[in-house]
Each structure stands twice: as structure tokens, then as C-alpha cells.
């Protein structure tokens, strides 16, 4: 289990991730690229706006990848670095990034699995460097949310149940 420390990323990080994903989408002719963290949270979406619920999608993606990691270990592999789910019209290619996040590429018949795999391989390296740097930063003091945040959050929780 990973530690309980929070981690954060800012607008600079988001811009750098977006540039990498935009390039991937152009070169692979894919529809949408998403970054999901291993705990099931959506970090970034580029390309065509997804028609599905992104929160639920992120949760299921992390679970999918984690379950397949366990299957890999049963076979004596350290991990499955990538997964492919093929549909009639739409397919998903998922790739591990530095054991920290998952890159998901949604594509259709406009492109091929081979091209997507090829382009993802290059992008995973750039993203790995980015995320490794971001997680190393986690040990330094992060900018904090405004004072009073916890009190306001408690008020909102009370309101949830009327």
C-alpha cells in the first residue's frame, strides 16, 4: 500500500502532460488519451471529450490494471506493462507509466493497434520522466489549500445528508 501523503500537480505539470498527449493523439490518429493514477483518479484527458462517466472510468481502469498485475505475478511475470481491450468499433490500449499512473488510449478503426503501440512506447518514456519528477517533489512542502478549508468541508458533508 502506498503512503498516506497527499500529492499534487500544478498548471505547469498539466501543460507538459497535455503537450505529450496531444502529440500522441496526432501521431497515433487516436481519439482520446487519458491519464489515470493507480488509486483510480483521473488526472488528465485530451482529444475528443469522452461520452462516458470519467470518474467511474478511472476507477475501473485502475482496478483492471491492478487485477492484471496480480495475474502477471501468478505467471511469474513482474507485471503486464500494457493491456489491450478490443471492441467492434472502439478499442482501448492501456500502458503503465513508471508504476505510478496509467496511460489509456481510446481509438477506433481510423488507426491500427500496431501504430498505437508504437507511438505509446515513445510517449511512456517522456511521461515516466515527468511523473517521476512530480512524485519526487512530493517530499517537499506543497502549496496548501486556504485556511478554513477543513471547516467548510465539514459543513458541506453535513449538508449532504440534509
Amino acid at each position, binding site marked *: *500500500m*502506498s*503512503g*498516506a*501523503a*497527499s*500529492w*499534487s*500537480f*500544478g*498548471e505547469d*505539470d*498539466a*501543460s507538459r502532460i497535455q503537450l505529450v498527449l496531444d502529440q500522441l493523439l496526432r501521431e497515433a490518429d487516436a481519439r482520446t488519451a487519458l491519464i489515470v*493514477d*493507480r*488509486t*483510480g*483518479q483521473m*488526472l488528465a484527458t485530451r482529444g475528443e471529450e469522452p461520452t462516458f*462517466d470519467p*470518474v*467511474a472510468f478511472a*476507477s*475501473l481502469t*485502475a*482496478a483492471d490494471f*491492478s*487485477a492484471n498485475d*496480480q495475474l502477471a505475478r501468478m505467471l511469474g511475470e513482474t507485471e503486464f506493462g500494457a493491456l489491450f481491450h478490443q471492441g467492434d468499433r472502439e478499442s482501448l490500449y492501456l500502458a503503465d507509466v513508471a508504476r505510478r499512473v496509467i496511460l489509456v488510449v481510446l481509438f477506433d478503426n481510423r488507426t491500427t493497434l500496431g501504430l498505437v503501440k508504437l507511438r505509446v512506447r515513445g510517449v511512456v518514456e517522456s511521461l515516466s520522466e515527468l511523473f517521476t519528477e512530480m512524485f519526487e517533489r512530493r517530499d517537499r512542502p*506543497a*502549496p496548501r*489549500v*486556504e485556511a*478554513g*478549508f477543513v471547516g*467548510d*468541508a465539514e459543513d*458541506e*458533508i453535513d449538508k*449532504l*445528508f*440534509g
Partner: protein
Amino acid sequence: MSLINYASREINCKLVYYGPGLGGKTTNLEYIYEKVAPAAKGKMISLATETERTLFFDFLPVDLGTIRGFKTRFHLYTVPGQVYYNASRKLILKGVDGVVFVADSQIERI
């Protein structure tokens, strides 16, 4: 491990309902789902067996709205209670911020 996304101004926290089988973890989540206003909740996902025992997890996102400029959301999960689902239980606990322990307090169930 809560995630603070300064780019999209979002904070996400992960809470896991944990405890022995048939203790009411999924029922807790279903109750919250019923009580929370539609605008504040997302789709509830249950990966369960045909007999409705939790196989992998139940998942419910709850939106607290915008607090001090940050869109704040809780991700509520349950784990399967049965001992033989140990592997999936560990996966769900990855990156957890808080745990709610649920057990049946009936004397014959303790």
C-alpha cells in the same frame, strides 16, 4: 493519498469501507447513495457475483461541491469481506485516505 490537482482545481479523497463479510459495507454505501441528492453523487458501480456478494469492489463518487475554489470529491469504496478475496482487498486499499470499519454487532456474528 489525496490528490490535489491545482490545474483543474480539484481535490479527490479515497475512503474505503472495510470489514468481515456480510457486515453491511455495501449496504452502507447503498444507504449513502439513496440519501445523497442526485446532483452530488455519481454512478454507483458494483462488481459483484450473481448472488450479490462483492467480488471486487463497490464504488460511489460523492461530490461536495466547490470549497474555497477547489472542486472536492470523495471516492467511496467497499472491499469484499470474504477471506479468499485477499488479493482484491489489498488492491482497493492502495492510496486510501481513510478507512471505515464495518462489522455486524449481533452477538452471534462477533
